[in-house]
């Protein structure tokens, strides 16, 4: 599992509340990614990080922010959750910078009521 964990694994929240999802890795990898998984859309990149404090937007970044203050943790924040952000969120890493293969965390199922 490449040492990747996500927390929480499940969350139900209400519209308008802030939510933070955590991705934790134990192997000191530089590149980390947040995706959302939705039927009919596959996986879409939200944000990614290429080092501590180095982050950038992906394909569907509106309504999301990220932070990476330590190598091992990549946080995804929904500032004010909306029902359209109900999804399964996956974190991923790459183990080598010259190698595109990504390894995924177990996912977080988020429901926004």
């Amino acid at each position: 599992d490449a040492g990747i964990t996500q927390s929480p694994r499940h969350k139900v929240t209400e519209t308008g509340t802030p939510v933070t999802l955590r991705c934790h890795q134990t192997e000191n990898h530089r590149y980390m990614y947040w995706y959302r998984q939705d039927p009919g859309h596959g996986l879409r990149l939200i944000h990614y990080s290429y080092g501590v404090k180095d982050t950038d937007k992906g394909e569907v970044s509106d309504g999301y922010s990220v932070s990476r203050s330590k190598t091992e943790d990549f946080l995804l924040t929904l500032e004010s959750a909306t029902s359209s952000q109900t999804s399964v969120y996956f974190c991923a890493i790459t183990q080598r910078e010259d190698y595109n293969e990504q390894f995924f965390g177990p996912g977080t199922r988020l429901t926004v009521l």
Partner: protein
Amino acid sequence: AQRVTQPEKLLSVFKGAPVELKCNYSYSGSPELFWYVQYSRQRLQLLLRHISRESIKGFTADLNKGETSFHLKKPFAQEEDSAMYYCALGPSGGYNKLIFGAGTRLAVHP
């Protein structure tokens, strides 16, 4: 634009039948293609990478640059192959980013 197309949302076959999950891509340059599999409510895991040219769990995939395709094939499907399959394309704009297709659900019936 870089894009991955998986035209089938659902592929339903009987055990022992051949399987082909289609993947077409759009990319200018030298692509890297991957197949990921997700069993029920589990994390995605790499099934195949075109560079390695391996056969994993009986699955194979050949990169056809002329047809811009990377179809996944297995001659005899098993019930345990039932899962969601995603084709992915990289690199996309640096930092090892990947573009994923919408996925195909394979259902293998007894």
